[in-house]
């Protein structure tokens, strides 16, 4: 079975590593790609430059506070792009500010998750994301 492709957009290497470790426990075979800022994220999605061979992600895990290009901009760009807008975007961020939640849902984020501070909870959340989006949900074939 073809592995599920995931793109993690996260500037904090520690957080990225935690996500990766948590996903290692996954039942479904998945490939996780990781980029560190918004510009890289768009290049990856559009298969530009160094990313010309990049796989098309089935799910995007997107942090909001990114250098160079902010996560909110990335979200807006993805959902405005005819080709990319069908890819579910899961916002995974430390912020719990009401404005952020509203704004990202307005920009058609598929869901908004606050990164738990506790490791166990974080692992549970990542597992839940994986279970939900990769096992339960039917993703569109591109």
């Amino acid at each position, binding site marked *: 079975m073809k592995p599920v492709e995931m793109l993690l957009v996260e500037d*904090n290497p*520690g957080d990225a590593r*935690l996500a990766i470790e948590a996903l290692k426990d996954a039942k479904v075979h998945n490939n996780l790609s990781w980029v560190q800022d918004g510009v890289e994220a768009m290049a990856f999605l559009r298969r530009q430059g160094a990313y010309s061979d990049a796989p098309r992600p089935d799910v995007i895990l997107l942090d909001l506070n990114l250098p160079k290009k902010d996560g909110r901009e990335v979200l807006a760009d993805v959902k405005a792009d005819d080709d990319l807008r069908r890819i579910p975007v899961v916002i995974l961020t*430390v912020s719990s500010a009401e404005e952020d939640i509203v704004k990202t849902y307005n920009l058609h984020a598929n869901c908004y998750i606050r*990164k738990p*501070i*506790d*490791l*166990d909870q974080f692992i549970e959340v990542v597992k839940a994301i994986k279970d939900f989006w990769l096992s339960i949900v039917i993703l569109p074939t591109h």
Partner: protein
Amino acid sequence: MKEKVKCWEVFQCEEKECPVYESRELNCWLIPGTHCRNEIQGKFLEKIEMCLECEPLKANIDVDSMGETLKVVNAQLTEFRSMVDERDRELEGTSMELALGLSEVFEGLKEISQGNPGVAIPETSNLELITKLKHMVNLTAENLTEIVDLSHEFAIGLAQHFDALDRVSKGDLAARISGTSEVELLESLKNVTNHMIDSVSTEITERQRAEQELKETLGELARSNAELEQFAYVASHDLQEPLRMVSSFVQLLARRYQGKLDQDADEFIGFAVDGAKRMQGLINDLLTYSRVGTKGKPFQTTDCNRVLSEALLNLSAATEESSAVITNDNLPTVMADKTQMVQLIQNLVANAIKFRNKDRPCIHVSSEQKNGTWVFSVSDNGIGIDSEYYDRIFAIFQRLHGKTEYPGTGIGLSVCKRIVERHGGRIWVDSEFSKGSRFYFTMPVTESSLGSPG
């Protein structure tokens, strides 16, 4: 020859019993208007031409004495005339004096009436009355001049007063009444007023200075407060991320390598994980505490029954686990920050559940209106609090128990206190050790406050 008339026929004496007439004496004659020689008055009723040729008449007229008499009369007449003339002249003179004098007096009085009291009529006259009159007018003019001058002095003095007091009232504290006056009353008034302005301006200057100081101090305090709140918030917020890293990876380490390293390593990891978790708890609490101020929302009408429902919903796990029975009276609607109200009630009920006795917790939430304020109470049948700790429990991070006895960092009640104080109320506790506690807090009643009185 004229017909002669008998002399005695000429006379017609009024006196009917004129003896001359009676006697028909021929040597009595009467000239109209004169006395009868014999001193009998009479007068002619009609003038009859007398014939002087009448011998008897001629014979009877004493021409000389008549001439003498006439002369005397003439002289008297002349004298009389000259007397009259002199009198006339005198009268004319007096009249003229009078007229002149009166016209001078008139002019003088006219001047005075037109407002020029500086009148001095030359007090010469031949008429004493006029002299006296002029003197009186001059005196009056003098008095008037004095009065006008005095009134002028007062007007100037009062104008200076008005000017100075007006300037003082408009904020010019240096204004004083200057100038001197010969009027004693004005001088004393001036001194008193200047003295008063001195004291008043000193007080005002002092008060302004004190107010300014106070304002500056308040401004500094407000700035300092805001800075501190910002600092606390940012510090706790920014501490989250590195803490997360430490905490998460130590825990990951524990998971991944537990049992794979030696026992010491396990212990060390255990302490590190525990420390990290507690640090996380403390920072979370600090954030919550500082957010009461920085993230407080404006007040809106809030139905406290719904607040209670939401709080109980959040506590459903703890409620179920402890089999707690939570009852309540109908609660009022108040002007408040709903999120913070939920936090407040949730903390109080959570404490009531946490600090329970062996029996199942029975918790009651009620409110009543007293002296224009809502007094809420959350009462329980838990372990109670010793009265000497009534104040300490509301201080930040103060705990009355060891961390192994009851969980928590001791932030709950200080957050409650902050929330209550933000809403303009106070919070306190009444308790009986090992029997139960009753926490009270007040909320102001506003026009839109509804709810049951009891």
